[in-house]
């Protein structure tokens, strides 16, 4: 038996390269986490959660208005995007012919690959220009455009998994199709649908580009939906590119909060998805 063989060597070299590739992919992830934790934890304090940003030059301050703004934007975007995504998916599964469903599914996939800054420009053309001003509404519209294809696709996958026997049982009892869809089909797919919603919210909560010229950002509290509104990702952007140490500190703290929020959402989505598969 040959102990040394070119083929075996080649195999080992390639295996080693795969391992190296994986390490190279994971190193930046580790570094990013390390820095967010290190810089974020040393910068975060109570002020961060209750104060608004201080003017340039003054130390301290927080991102309270950004957090509230992000919450408002997400809520409004969900209000627009969720019904469209979920009921659109109901159409694809319950009514749509295979061809038209395929076209819409394809369009949703393509739409989710469009750069998010484009949705901001579209929202600008649709709302900011006619209303002559940046507003929370325009920001939410831009975010909802990102949300719809994600929610539609995940909801559709979940509805497809509901067994037809359930629908037939309901219809046989004389329940109209629309009530069957809402009360039987959607309800039995609820966990999966919620997973999709959480993932969509996680995705939009960190979006910055579509908000740059729709929600614009706000140094202060805003109390109208037709006014510019602050958002955490926007504040992180502004603070990160500023030359001030103290603002960098705020940006890191903001990053920590945002990442925690998003991983919380992703993990709960993952958890919901998993318990569904097991049952």
């Amino acid at each position, binding site marked *: 038996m040959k102990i040394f063989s070119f083929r075996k060597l080649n*195999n080992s070299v*390639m*295996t080693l390269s*795969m*391992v190296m*590739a*994986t390490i*190279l*992919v*994971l190193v*930046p*992830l580790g*570094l*990013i986490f390390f*820095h*967010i934790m290190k810089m974020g934890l040393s910068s975060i304090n109570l002020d961060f959660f209750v104060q608004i940003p201080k003017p340039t030059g003054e130390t301290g301050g927080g991102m309270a208005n950004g957090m509230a703004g992000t919450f408002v934007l997400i809520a409004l975007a969900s209000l627009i995007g969720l019904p469209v995504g979920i*009921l*659109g998916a109901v*159409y694809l599964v*319950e*009514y*749509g012919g295979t061809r038209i469903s395929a076209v*819409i599914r394809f*369009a949703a*996939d*393509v*739409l989710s*690959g*469009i*750069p*998010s*800054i*484009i949705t901001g*420009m*579209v929202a*600008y*053309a649709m709302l900011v220009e006619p209303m002559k001003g*940046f507003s929370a509404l325009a920001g939410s519209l831009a975010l909802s455009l990102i949300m719809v294809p994600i929610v*539609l696709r995940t909801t559709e*996958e979940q509805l497809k998994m509901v067994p037809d026997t359930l629908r037939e049982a309901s219809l046989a009892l004389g329940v*109209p199709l*629309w009530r069957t869809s809402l009360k039987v089909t959607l309800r039995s797919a609820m966990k999966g649908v919620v997973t999709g919603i959480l993932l969509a919210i996680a995705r939009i*909560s*960190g979006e910055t*580009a579509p908000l*740059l*010229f729709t929600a*614009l950002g706000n140094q202060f509290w805003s109390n109208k939906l037709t006014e510019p509104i602050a958002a955490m*990702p926007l504040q992180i*952007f502004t603070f*990160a*590119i500023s030359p001030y140490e103290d603002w*960098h500190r705020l*940006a*890191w703290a903001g*990053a920590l909060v*945002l990442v925690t929020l*998003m*991983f919380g959402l*992703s993990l709960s989505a993952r958890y919901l998805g998993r318990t569904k598969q097991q049952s």
Partner: protein
Amino acid sequence: MPQDTQPHKWKIENGLNGDFIFKGVTILFAFSILAILLLMLYEMSHESLPAIRKFGWSFVSGSEWDAVQSEFAALPYLYGSVVSSILALALATPLSVGTAIFITEIAPKKFGGLVAALVELLAAIPSVIYGLWGILVMAPWLQKTVQPFLIEHLGFLPFFQGAPYGVSMLAAVFILMIMIVPIITSITKEVLLAVPQSQKEAAIALGATRWEMIRTAMLPYGRSGILGAVILGLGRAIGETMAVTMVIGNNPQISLSLLSPAYTMPSVIANEFAETTSKLHASALMEIGLILLAVTLVINVLARLLLWGVTRQSGGNV
């Protein structure tokens, strides 16, 4: 329902009940996806008309971008977008495919699952946080160590000339690479998982080593799927805005050197669109957006068509 014995009455009731309305609403929402796409194309083309009329083809061939003189041409931005994306893709593809192979074939199942989950976490981090890390951690590191090293040892090449700024094309390429690795990896993983077991066993039975099995049985089988994943990664890289804007230096110049600052299409939109000085300025930015939209549409359609067969086999969650 007892009324069902009377067909006529049943028909009227059927017309009036919620089914009709419900179906109408769901149709409306489902088709809104197509409407959104068309609306995007319409709004963007409509808004960029003034710039298209004024500049014509010189918009994509010239390099003068001057809001004061109302001269707009976008070549430096096109150049920056294309170069940064292609280079990032060239770095990310081998890493991603390697990681996907590691997850599916080399690592023990549990550990592979852990790596896959970590890579997905990487995809969940918002762009602006990559940018924050890029500008405050990576760019200073590049400026202090990597760039001086490149200048000293490879400075005779046109790609590594100039002063070490930190924020540069190189920084954008690195940050883009980190950002598109997750998407290429996770789709390639799905593609590799869809390779039939019998194919792999056939290769092993013929005496192939593990790498030979991967090279001869798995990669050719998943070729179109992997290509789709790579193209999808390209689409992501071209449209990536925040992180690139924060690390590329935002200087509209066409320079071979990777160490000098550059500018991309999404970055100029991000930086200037909220504060345009004239209608024409806004329109020129819209035209850049339109180009971006057209490019990413083509890329995404292409990628999805390539992935179509694979997604149908594995259940569609790609």
